[in-house]
């Protein structure tokens, strides 16, 4: 590549002095590669550094491209449901819901009341679990190696126990079906969930008091990686990262899918769009999803959990296409299905929120130090299963 004397060729020569180096010291090209403690999985960033400052950053991914869309093309509609757990493998129930919603839109299936409530309860629990885990990983990226992660994973384990008793699996729930859910709530699950929801405010209080006013965290995140409103919208960023820049766009409020319009909850917005706002947004969103959880647990009705008429085995929707989307914890997760009348989808496309949020990574990191790149990537919250599909 580049010998020690002249700078890295890939960099366009700065017009001011097209000579060797610009008197600032040469540029070092290093790759924070697929195996790196800070990249939350196999994600690689080719970083060109001028001393400590980032000059260029090229994200490279595809190291976990498991061909989910190709496999789905010769799988039945129901056969792809367990694969959706492995898309964003931290929030499997919201992936299931997004896929079920898209197929229900494609085939026009109705969902009974109780199933809608169960979907909201499990989705809000998943959102809580994802935001808690994210804050644990973000603080670990900043150097608090493990302690906040222990708190977050303690709550995560209790939620996973609830998921395991409901769906049978801790992480890979495969719980939703087209038109409802697979199995009803076991006896006593509702009381366990209510008891757990009662302990959450204390955890949130403790988590916030521990971290939010910590001066190291504030110094490391305030004013770092500022994302402007217009650029966020144009780059297709969605979810907490977008709302941290002040754009009021939450698919739960816009599409009003499921029965979200029955619940009173606010959508927190940030003003500066820096890493501290993205961090605080997650804390506030955890409080909002706790509010929804309590309302849903309080007035869940009795009734069937799946529409008895819908055929689950041998499901052949009429030819046509549909794009269904939900507000996943990381952003807008959408499924675009084209059906040609057979039992297998003709085209099965996952609109990944993490991959779209990565579009802005380079623009946020340029000009910051290498250590800030790690924090900015942590605040964007990517999971490689969904980025690479």
């Amino acid at each position, binding site marked *: 590549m580049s010998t020690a004397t002249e700078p890295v060729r890939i960099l366009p020569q700065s017009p001011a002095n097209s000579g060797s180096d610009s008197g600032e010291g040469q540029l070092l090209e290093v790759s924070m*590669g*697929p*195996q*790196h*403690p800070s990249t939350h*999985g*196999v994600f690689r960033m080719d970083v060109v550094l001028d001393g400590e400052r980032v000059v260029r950053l090229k994200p490279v991914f*595809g*190291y*976990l*491209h*498991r*061909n*989910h869309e*190709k*496999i789905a093309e*010769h799988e039945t509609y129901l056969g792809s449901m*367990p*694969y959706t757990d*492995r898309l964003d*493998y*931290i929030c499997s129930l919201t992936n299931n819901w997004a896929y079920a919603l898209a197929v229900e839109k494609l085939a026009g299936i109705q969902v009974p009341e109780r199933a809608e409530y169960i979907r909201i309860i499990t989705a809000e629990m998943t959102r809580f679990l994802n935001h808690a885990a994210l804050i644990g990983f973000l603080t670990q990226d900043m150097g608090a190696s493990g302690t906040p*992660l*222990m708190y977050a*994973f*303690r709550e*995560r*384990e209790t939620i996973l126990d609830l998921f395991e008793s409901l769906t049978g699996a*801790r*992480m*890979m729930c495969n719980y939703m079906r087209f038109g409802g859910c697979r199995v009803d709530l076991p006896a006593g699950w509702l009381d366990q969930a209510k008891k757990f929801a009662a302990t959450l405010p204390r955890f949130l209080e403790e988590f916030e008091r521990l971290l939010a006013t910590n001066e190291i965290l504030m110094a490391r995140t305030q004013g770092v990686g500022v994302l402007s409103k217009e650029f966020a919208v144009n780059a297709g960023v969605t979810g907490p990262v977008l709302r941290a820049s002040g754009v009021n766009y939450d698919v739960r409020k816009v599409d009003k899918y499921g029965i979200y319009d029955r619940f009173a909850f606010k959508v927190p917005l940030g003003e500066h769009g820096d890493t501290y706002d993205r961090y605080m947004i997650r804390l506030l969103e955890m409080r909002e999803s706790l509010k929804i959880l309590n309302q849903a647990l309080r007035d869940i009705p009795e009734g069937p959990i799946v529409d008895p008429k819908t055929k689950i085995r041998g499901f052949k929707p009429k030819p046509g296409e549909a794009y269904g989307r939900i507000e996943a914890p990381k952003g807008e997760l959408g499924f675009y299905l084209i059906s040609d009348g057979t039992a297998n989808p003709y085209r099965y496309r996952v609109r990944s929120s993490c991959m779209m949020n990565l579009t802005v990574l380079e623009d946020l990191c340029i000009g910051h130090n290498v250590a800030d790149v790690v924090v900015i990537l942590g605040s964007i919250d990517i999971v*490689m*299963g969904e980025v690479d599909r």
Partner: protein
Amino acid sequence: MDENLKSELRKQGIVATTLQELYNWGRKNSLWPLNFGLACCAIEMIAASMARYDMARFGAEVFRPSPRQADLMIVAGTVTKKMAPQVVRLYNQMAEPKYVISMGACAISGGPFKQGYNVLKGIDRYIPVDVYIPGCPPRPEALIDALMALQKIIDKQSLTGADRPRHLQADAPSEFVVPEFGAHDLEPSQNPEVWQPPLVNISLGGTDDAGKH
């Protein structure tokens, strides 16, 4: 040194051991895993090292980011063909003695993504694997059980003699060929030194006309 003599001595407060036992005891109780999560199994690996399942009780809690300081590689998740050269290069760069736990159905044989065009059908095609954990993802208890299985293997290793472990034999290779990116597939598509495709005995695997009707 037969056993009851040892237990008698131990009752009197005297510990009699051999150099080999001491070496294995030290080795097995401080297996430092390489910080190397690929996919969903990595989240279960992290959960196994957290407060509830706590791998620290077995000495495997320190996750070292660099292969130079790690002696256990837990391949947790789907190894894709784009990632395979990096996995093998990391294994080569680890210091001896090095062990491999292949965690999850994907690392063993490609798992649910077996038909994917970019998925390597099992990491044991390129590097020798010591312990396999089935499951998708395997529970944290399964990972701790695999750790104990590996500790039993280390406990039975002998310092000298013919059945010495790989890292004590001078001729056993400590490096394996790193696959290159080809035009359609990895070259070579598997490492013949390490992995032989088991022959499908078609007559047993269903009579010859099994495929006809």
